[in-house]
């Protein structure tokens, strides 16, 4: 088990390095000269090139990469051009908020997905089964932003049940306030993963229930409930397989959700930086998200290997 995790970690390192290269290059393809813009219209060429050197943007491409990379590793992600604050601080606090939202959405996605998928598997021909499979088909396709708008309209504007922006009320605070504010964004973010989980759980459960060992379990005199528990246990590997992907989807999709609901997370930060052409922040934001995604995948893969020992040998 330990060797498995170690192997995965070792494998992740070149990928992470590649990630930093991609992030670096992505910003490099932006047309125009950001340094000249930064220096202002009245700057002399000498001042511009001095600024360029100071920002580490002089020299060859590999040199620039190394300059940026070595600082990033130490947690120095530069200075935001728009706000003149250290990027690292901005990004970390925003990331924390995104994690909260992602966790909230994940809980909704898992609960909803397992319930819908389970009902769909156990009662395939009943009304419930048909409804749940239709729902999961729809929720997979629904664009998050569409959904967000629908939810806002019906659950907030018309009814006033839930707040539509921000993380806390201006004079509020505390856990319940957070839950209220987070409800709509979390459902919006979590609905598509819920649909995917429902689908996978349903098909995995049906597959398992058709397997020989379910009959063998019944022949051992186990109750329906016990057989079902074992069957569900056997769907966990399949679920974990897509869990990583779904979490990635969550991390990426929060951009829309945070923008619409004004949730102060990493997605909103990146969006605002796009409008403001604040390159260091965009860079740092994408980098942090990607690294988080890789780490999450390693954790999920390790859980998978823990549950299903067949995976460890490959």
């Amino acid at each position: 088990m330990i060797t498995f995790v170690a192997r995965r970690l070792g494998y992740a390192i070149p990928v992470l390095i590649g990630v930093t290269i991609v992030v670096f290059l992505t910003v490099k393809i932006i047309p125009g000269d950001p340094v000249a813009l930064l220096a202002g219209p009245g700057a002399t060429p000498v001042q511009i090139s001095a600024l360029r050197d100071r920002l580490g943007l002089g020299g060859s491409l590999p040199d620039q990469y190394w300059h940026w990379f070595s600082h990033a590793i130490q947690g120095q992600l530069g200075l935001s051009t728009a706000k003149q604050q250290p990027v690292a601080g901005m990004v970390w606090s925003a990331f924390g908020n995104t994690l909260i939202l992602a966790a909230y959405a994940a809980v909704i996605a898992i609960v909803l997905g397992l319930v819908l998928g389970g009902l769909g598997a156990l009662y395939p021909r009943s009304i419930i089964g048909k409804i749940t499979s239709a729902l999961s088909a729809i929720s997979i396709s629904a664009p998050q932003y569409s959904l967000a708008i629908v939810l806002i309209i019906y659950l907030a504007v018309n009814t006033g049940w839930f707040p539509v922006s921000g993380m806390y009320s201006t004079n509020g605070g505390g856990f319940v306030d957070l839950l209220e504010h987070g409800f709509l964004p979390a459902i919006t973010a979590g609905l598509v993963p819920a649909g995917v989980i429902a689908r996978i759980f349903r098909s995995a459960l049906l597959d398992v229930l058709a397997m020989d060992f379910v009959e063998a379990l019944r022949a051992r005199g186990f109750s329906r409930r016990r057989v079902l528990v074992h069957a569900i246990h056997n769907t966990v590997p399949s679920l974990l397989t897509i869990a990583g992907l779904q979490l990635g989807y969550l991390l990426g999709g929060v951009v829309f959700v945070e923008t619409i609901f004004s949730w102060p997370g990493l997605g909103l930060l990146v969006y605002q930086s796009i409008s403001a052409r604040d390159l260091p922040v965009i860079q740092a934001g994408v980098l942090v998200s990607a690294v988080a995604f890789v780490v999450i995948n390693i954790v999920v893969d390790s859980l998978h290997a823990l549950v299903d020992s067949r995976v460890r040998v490959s």
Partner: protein
Amino acid sequence: MTQIFRLRGDAAGEALAEVTEAANLETVPVPRAAADVPRRRHARRWSLYITGFLAIALILLAIIGPFIVGDPNTGTVTARLKGVGASGHLLGTDGQGRDMLTRLVAGARPSMISGVVPVLVAAVIGSTLGVFAGLSGRVVHAIIMRALDVLYAFPAVLLAIAIAAALGPGTKNAIISLSVVLIPPIARIAETETARLRDMDFMEAARASGANRASIALRQVLPNIGPALVVYCTAAVGLCLVYAGGLSFLGLGVAPPAPEWGSMLNDLRQYIFTNPTLALIPATVIGLASIIFNLLGDALRDALDVRKEARA
């Protein structure tokens, strides 16, 4: 369940001797009610026809759309924000008095282009990469797959946003960005299927006959991995429509005032508290288009009998 041989009592004495070597009679699963099977197949074929028809209708709409409606950009301030069913405006008007229905139909083309072209581009590039990796030696294979893994390490949406943001707004840049995002999954499917085929006997026969890699790729591999690719790409169109709409929603795709479903949505967002139903319209349209292609992908998968892959 696999079937071994039947103990045939008919004339094939030789085959029979082979078969009965281990007194092996046959294993057949418990039969299920015969009535079920044709009904299910029937239903599957209908879903294929319906979704296929709808998808083609969407594509046609995209092609001829701008020709059959008026100018989507004219609007009078006096006519702004009329609701659904107003006279002369079946689906109402937006904040600048432009007719929604006209904009939706005219917007079909840029929306569908942003949804379909990246898939096509990624399909060509991705399957080439994947097949090449699948047929190559270990080193080349490893390099290609690891490079793709790096792209995979990004949440797809974020990567699309980052690239599109870097390149700037505009349809062309959105297409480039979405293509890059779609290449890794397509390449992976191509590589997996190619690797699966590589070990089969007919591939060895092709290699032994002296065919070079390119012709093997074209003649043997491509036709066999075709179904899996087609199924994924169809679903990918659904996904790409949503992503493209999202990019426009964030201001990164089609530039206003050109109509495009995503940017229409962004535009109408500000009126959510006063005229909520207006924003619903492009939202629903994007959702419907995406659902159609997703369901088409499912129907194709059933029809072409491709094994299910857990790709999301």
